């Protein structure tokens, strides 16, 4: 019983660490990107300062807004936090990881997105509708690609539980699995699209005709905007953790000892920092695409995921005979 309680407590602490560290990751990406572009970077803690500033400001609610506009930040933030609670960060086999599996995770993303999009349409401005329409289009193409990548993992590991799947990858050791390579590449492309990064969207601009995420949250201000921004940072970190912990889970704590958790923390920090460098590098190298080129990009992600699935079925799965 005491063990159970400790495990739950640890799971809650891990979730808090997750959401607490999300702005840090965003700050790190910004820093690396600034360096790559020969600009003077802001402090690593700038995202926290921004959040604190938004917190204190008086929010402004537009006249046509309904209650959807007011609850959307809470729903978006809560769904991001719940998603963070079921993704193993430092250790596997925590009790929260049983509450939901990876398909529910995709569902939670969809729930948050739905309210974000509804909030975008609530004001009745052209910007909100434009962002909403584009977000739904892109996500409806990205979701199959993501599920296909996830299914490749699930069919190899015979489970959709994230923790069990990581256990499986740890147990089988470091072997070159073409299916995992394809699935990881597919998931990385999806992650770029779903978190609104270059080349699909540009999180740094306002009032650019091609923006997506910013167009939906244009009317938000003050603490509502703070929640939305924080939720977006958590989502970015979620995709990062998914990529590094599912496909390269080495270092994650198998048991609940302080030493193992410390190793887990160090490992995940290092992996995320490296992944962030890759992301910043790609953002510095590529330009933003036209909206109607995004479908080709996402079809490519889907193709990679399908290749992963097929190579699992053809090359890796032991054939069952009846």
């Amino acid at each position: 019983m005491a063990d159970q309680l400790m495990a739950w407590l640890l799971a809650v602490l891990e979730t808090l660490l997750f959401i607490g560290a999300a702005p840090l990751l965003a700050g790190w990406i910004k820093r690396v990107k600034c360096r790559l572009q020969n600009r003077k970077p802001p402090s690593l803690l700038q995202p926290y300062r921004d959040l604190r500033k938004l917190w204190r400001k008086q929010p402004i609610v537009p006249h046509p807004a309904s209650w959807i506009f007011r609850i959307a930040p809470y729903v978006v933030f809560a769904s991001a936090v719940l998603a963070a609670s079921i993704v193993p960060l430092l250790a596997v086999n925590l009790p929260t990881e049983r509450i939901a599996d990876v398909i529910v995770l995709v569902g939670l993303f969809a729930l948050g997105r739905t309210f974000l999009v509804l909030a975008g349409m609530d004001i009745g401005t052209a910007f909100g509708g434009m962002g909403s329409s584009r977000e739904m289009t892109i996500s409806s193409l990205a979701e199959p690609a993501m599920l296909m990548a996830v299914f490749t993992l699930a069919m190899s590991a015979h489970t959709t539980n994230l923790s069990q799947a990581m256990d499986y990858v740890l147990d089988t050791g470091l072997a070159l699995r073409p299916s995992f390579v394809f699935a990881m590449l597919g998931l990385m492309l999806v992650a770029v699209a779903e978190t609104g990064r270059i080349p699909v969207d540009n999180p740094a601009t306002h009032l650019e005709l091609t923006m997506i995420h910013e167009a939906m949250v244009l009317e938000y201000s003050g603490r509502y905007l703070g929640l939305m921004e924080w939720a977006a940072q958590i989502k970015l970190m979620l995709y990062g953790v998914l990529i590094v912990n599912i496909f390269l889970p080495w270092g994650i704590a198998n048991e609940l000892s302080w030493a193992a958790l410390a190793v887990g923390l160090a490992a995940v920090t290092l992996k995320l920092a490296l992944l962030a460098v890759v992301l910043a590098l790609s953002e510095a190298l590529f330009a933003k695409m036209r909206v109607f080129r995004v479908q080709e990009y996402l079809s490519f992600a889907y193709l990679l995921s399908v290749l992963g699935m097929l190579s699992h079925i053809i090359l890796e799965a032991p054939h069952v005979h009846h």
Partner: protein
Amino acid sequence: MSLFLAEMSVLAALLSSLVALAAGRRIGRTAPFACLGLSGAAALLAGVEALSGGASVTAVLPFGLPWLPWHLRLDPLAGFFLCVLGVPLIAASLFGPGYARELQHGKSPLSVLGLFTGLFVAGMELVLLADDAFFFVIVWELMSVASYFLVAFQHEHSANRRAAFLYLLMAEIGAIAIILAFGVLAGFAGGLTFDAMRGVALAPAWASLAFTLALIGFGMKAGLVPLHAWLPEAHPVAPSHISALMSGVMLKVAVYGFVRFVFDLLPATFWQWGVVVLAIGAGSAVLGILYALQQQNLKRMLAYSSVENVGIIFMALGLSLIFRGGGQTQLGALALLAALLHCFNHALFKSLLFLGAGAVLHQAKEHSLELMGGLIHRMPKLAAVFLVGCLSASALPFFNGFVSEWLIFQAALQAGVLGSGVLRSVIPAASAVLALTSALAAAAFVQVYGVAFLGLPRSHHAARAREVHHRGMLLGPALLAACCVAFGIFPYPLINALGTVTGLLTGEHLPQASALGWLWLTPVSPEVSSYSPPLLLLGAVAVGWLCYYALYRRGGPEPRRAEPWDCGFGGLNARMQYTAAAFSMPIRRIFQPVFDVEERVDTHSDGPGRWHVTGLAYHLQVADRAWNALYEPFGQGVTRLARWVGRIQTGSVRTYLAYSFFTLLVLLWLIS
């Protein structure tokens, strides 16, 4: 006891017909609906009892032909579908009286509506209870023909008559296929009762023929692509509570027929059938939702979404057939359970959406989404209820639609146990289609909700809409919304009860489903997957409340109301917001080969050299490709054939006498 209740529910439905015919105007509005409500409650009770008891009860009615009495039987499968029928029927009967008050002013008398509604409901209930092919076909026809009159209720519009005729035509073609399918079985069994058919030995070719005919017949009624053409025509023109029953319940009765025929009556299963059903289901799902996205008429959009959901149900049935044919009965049971659960869930949320749409059309007096907008301010209660329906239909967590889709994904992910490599890659591909479908469904329902309820009103009617004043018109949808949430959070009791149905049809329960207790769903085993909606909800509420507490209770300035940002130009108005056509434009462009799009801009100009543009009109027509590819050529073929045959009709009596003479000669020659 359960069969008695079921018979009572049929009698109550028939009584409502009689009451509607006999009663005057005032009572005529409420009394038939009260009877229907009783019928729904009795059906629900009978269904629950049959599900929990697990036994089947039979009876023989002394009607019909002397040597062909009518057989009734209530087993868990029929009981489950009685529940699927009961809940929406109760909601529709709550909704009906208020709705009928408005229909009263129309040209068509309400007594006709009441008469055929009662017959339609009784027909559906009897289809579920029928235990011999003869009786089944009779009550199936009762259901079809009664619903034809309901579709044709407002027959003063020619579009309604056309839709009703198309519906009747396709219903009859489907009925012929069903009769032939039963004919194959009955021919070998030597009897018309289902009991005789169950034990029959069939050659694979005959079994496949019977299966194909059943798929065509029941699939046509259920609205599978490409046999769905009647559905988006008929559902929008029927009165809204009838649309709710047709879409929520009648399509499920067709699914029931298919399940009864293929899983219960046919002796063997081949995995090839499963592949066919899976492919057709996947096609219906994705095409249905793509077309739904392009509709500007609210009820038409909901009708296309039914095509999608029926497709999802058939995908799960196909999976079940594949697993069964491959010898994996346990997984077959899981997929079947997911299909049945989705039937129930779809019945709940689609009836809710149609009833809600009825209330909206009623108050906003507009059919087109493009003329609504801002209704959340005018009808806040209905807007909240409708939102629940939209979220359920988008298959989002905490709502019921998600649970059944999650189970379908879980079943599909077990494809690895199958021997054939082709199957192991076809099933994941189909589940990717399902993922695309549910993502597009979310887009479609966001579009509907965002355009109709959010933003600024786009027409005078929408700006002057009011909350429905009749309490039942809110209570009916609200009841369904409560069920959607309840079964989304506590699906376990229902899944447990469905174990008796899968036990009856496949001999398998899901022993692992309760491995972690009633808070958890573990369809295969706890290691493979687990989902606990109550705990997830608890977490969501805790996080939401903490945020609210941290942001509001701890002080901080109150929000201020202001004008939205208008880029400094000023004068934002309703015409500047995104329309439904604009919202779905990127998807229309990406999936262009699927649609038959006709798009043009008419420019009206004036002045010397026509340089002064006085008006612009944008026309968009998105048609179903199935029409041009399948129905139009067929229709033209029939017309050509008729014209060719018509040549023998010269109009002169002498020619006809000559025909008679030669016919007589030939007949005499044949006899002698």
